[in-house]
C-alpha cells in the first residue's frame, strides 16, 4: 500500500523487556492484551502480574480487541427510585465511573483499523455517543505487525497490510522483519501524539523502552516496508474486494437463501468480529434500583428485530444473513465510504458452518 504516515517517535523495545514495560504502563492504565487462556488466545484486561504472559505469537485472538472500546456489557446509568418517603417519588440517576485510561496492547493492524471503523459510527454524524467517546478518548492502541499472517487472513483484500498503521497510536514491528515469529526486539513507532506520549512516558523509559540507535534507522525502514509488502494467503487468492456497487442490485438474489441454509443463527460471527458493533439496551435490577446497560447484540438472532406485538421484518435466516453481509459490504459503504470488514479472518476460523465473509464476497463477484 502507498501508506506513508510520518512517525512521531521511534523506540526499541526488547522482547524480554515487554513484561516490564506493560507492568510499568499498568501503574496508570488498565492494560488489555492477548493472553493464552486454556490453550486459546484471548484479548482481555490483564490481571496484576499477568503482564509477562502477553502472547504476541498467535496471529490473532479468538475474540477481538473491540472490547477495549466497546465492552460486551457496559453500564450506562444507575437509577434509584425512592417512593416510600410519603411524598412524591424521586428518581436519581448516576453515570458510572468510566475508569482509568486503557492501553489496548498487542492488537493486529487489522484490529486497529477496525477500531477506527467503530469510531466512524460512534463519533460521527449528528450524534456523538458520549459514553463511547469518554472511553475512547482514554484509549491508546498499540498494534503489532504480523510477521506470518494466518491462512485465514485477508486484510489485503481491503487494501490493508500486515504492517498497516491506521488506527494505531503505536505500532510494534519485529526487528528481524516479517517471515519470522522469533526475534529479539521490536521497533516501537508512534504515529500519534497519544502514542508519542506513551513511548516517552517516565514509566516506559524506566522500563527500558530505549531510543533507537542512530545506526538502525534504515534497518527499521526496511523492516516496516517489508511488513507492508507482505501478502496474506487468503487475501492474495481473493484479490481486492470491492463489491458495494454490485450488491446494490442483489438484495432479492436467491443466493442469500442458498448460502444461509446452513446458518445455525449462533451469532458467533458477530461476537468475534472486530467491526460488528450492533448493541441493545436493557435494564437489570428491580424498579426501585438497578442499572441500564448496553450489550453486544447480533443481527443473526431471530429476536434481534422482533417487535412488541410479534412483527419481525427479518423472520428468515436468509434475511438475517443478508443483513449482516449487506451491512458490511454495502450499507456501511454507502454511509461511510468504506467497507465494514478488515479481513482479520476470525469469522473464517470461528463460524461452525463455514459461512464467512470472504466466501460471500468471493461468491458475490460471480453473481
Amino acid at each position: 500500500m502507498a501508506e506513508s504516515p510520518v512517525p512521531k517517535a521511534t523506540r526499541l523495545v526488547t522482547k524480554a523487556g515487554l513484561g516490564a514495560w506493560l507492568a510499568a504502563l499498568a501503574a496508570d492504565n488498565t492494560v488489555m492484551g492477548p493472553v493464552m487462556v486454556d490453550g486459546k488466545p484471548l484479548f482481555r484486561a490483564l490481571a496484576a502480574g499477568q503482564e509477562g504472559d502477553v502472547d504476541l505469537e498467535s496471529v490473532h485472538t479468538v475474540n477481538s480487541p473491540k472490547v477495549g472500546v466497546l465492552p460486551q456489557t457496559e453500564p450506562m446509568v444507575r437509577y434509584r427510585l425512592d417512593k416510600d418517603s410519603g411524598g412524591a417519588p424521586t428518581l436519581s440517576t448516576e453515570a458510572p465511573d468510566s475508569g482509568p485510561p486503557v492501553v489496548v496492547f498487542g492488537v493486529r493492524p487489522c484490529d486497529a483499523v477496525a477500531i477506527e471503523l467503530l469510531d466512524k459510527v460512534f463519533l460521527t454524524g449528528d450524534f456523538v455517543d458520549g459514553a463511547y467517546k469518554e472511553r475512547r478518548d482514554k484509549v491508546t492502541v498499540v498494534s503489532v505487525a504480523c510477521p506470518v499472517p494466518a491462512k485465514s487472513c485477508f486484510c489485503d483484500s481491503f487494501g490493508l497490510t500486515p504492517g498497516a498503521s491506521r488506527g494505531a497510536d503505536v505500532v510494534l514491528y519485529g526487528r528481524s522483519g516479517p517471515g519470522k515469529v522469533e526475534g529479539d526486539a521490536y521497533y516501537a513507532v508512534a504515529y500519534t501524539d497519544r502514542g508519542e506520549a506513551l513511548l516517552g512516558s517516565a514509566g516506559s523509559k524506566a522500563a527500558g523502552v530505549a531510543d533507537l540507535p542512530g545506526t538502525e534507522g534504515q534497518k527499521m525502514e526496511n523492516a516496516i516496508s517489508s511488513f507492508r509488502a507482505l501478502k496474506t494467503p487468503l487475501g492474495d487468492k481473493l484479490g481486492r474486494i470491492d463489491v458495494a456497487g454490485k450488491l446494490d442490485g442483489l438484495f432479492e438474489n436467491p443466493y442469500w437463501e442458498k448460502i444461509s441454509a446452513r446458518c445455525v443463527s449462533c451469532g458467533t460471527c458477530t461476537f468475534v468480529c472486530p467491526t460488528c458493533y450492533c448493541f441493545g439496551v436493557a435494564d437489570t435490577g428491580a424498579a426501585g434500583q438497578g442499572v441500564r446497560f448496553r450489550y453486544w447484540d447480533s443481527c443473526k438472532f431471530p429476536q434481534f428485530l422482533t417487535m412488541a406485538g410479534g412483527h419481525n421484518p427479518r423472520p428468515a435466516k436468509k434475511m438475517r444473513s443478508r443483513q449482516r453481509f449487506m451491512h458490511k459490504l454495502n450499507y456501511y459503504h454507502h454511509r461511510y465510504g468504506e467497507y465494514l470488514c478488515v479481513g482479520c479472518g476470525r469469522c473464517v476460523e470461528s463460524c461452525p458452518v463455514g459461512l464467512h465473509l470472504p466466501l460471500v464476497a468471493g461468491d458475490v463477484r460471480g453473481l
Partner: protein
Amino acid sequence: MMSDNLLVPGVATILDIRDETSNGDTKTFWVQFDKPEDAFVHRPGQCAMISVFGVGESMISITSTPTRGWPIELCIKRAGRVTGALHDSQIGDKVGLRGPYGNIFPVEDWKGKNLVFIAGGFALAPVRCLIDYCLAHRDWFKHIDIIYGARSPGDLCFKPDILERWPKEKDTTVSLTVDRADEAGTWKGPVGFVPSFVEQVKPSPKDTIAVTCGPPIMIKFVLQVLPKLGFTDEQTFTTLELKMQCGVGKCGRCNIGDKYVCVDGPVFNLTQIKKLPAEF
C-alpha cells in the same frame, strides 16, 4: 443538563393519563421533565424514547404539537413489556425521557398547498402533532382534509379533536369512518375501511400533499388508492417504524437498507420508500 451519554434519559413525571379507546388499550401520557433545563423542542414527525426504569425503553412518536410546548403528549398502545408497564403506571410516577429523535415532515415546503391527512387507529398520534402544528400556522396552507378511521367507534382516538376542535377550524374538513359500527347503533357516520373511504372522499391531488399513517395493511392499500386519485409519489408522505434501541443511528437496529429509521426517518415520501428494500 442531560448527560453527554446519549442513552441516559432525563427524569420526567407523568402528569396525566387519558384513555383514548373504549377498551383501554390506548392511552395518552402527559409527561414533563423534572428539570426544566432538560426540556427539548421537537418538530412534527419526531419521536422520544420513554422508559420505565427496571423494564426498558420504547420509541414513541410525540403526538402534541411543539407550538403547545410542555408537557408533551405520547399516545401509547399496550403492546409489550415497556408499554405494558407504562399502562400500569399512575399519575405522578417517574419515567425516563430522551429525545427528540428522527427527521421531520417538511412542512415549510408545503406552504401554499392543500393538505390531506389519512390515518387509521392509534396511528393518528404522529399525524395529530403535524395537524395541530399546521393548524397553528393555518395561513400557510389552503384546504385541510382529515380522513380518519378505526375498527370501531370506541377505537377512534383523540375524540375531542376529531369531533369538536378540528371540524371548527377554518377551511378544514374532518371525515370519519369505522370498520364496523357499534352494536348499540350510536354510530351514524360512514362504515368502511380507510382506503376505500379515501376513494369516496376523493381528495383532489392538485397542489396537495397527502400524509398517511396507520397499520401496515392500511398504509399498503392507501398507497394504492392515492395514485388512482392522481397523487404522485413526491406528494405522498408516510412514517415508518422499526424496533429501536438507541434512537441516534448507532445501535444498528432499525436499518432498512442503508437508511436508519431513527435518524433518516421516520418520515419518508413514497419516492424514497420505493428505493428501500422491502424489509420492514
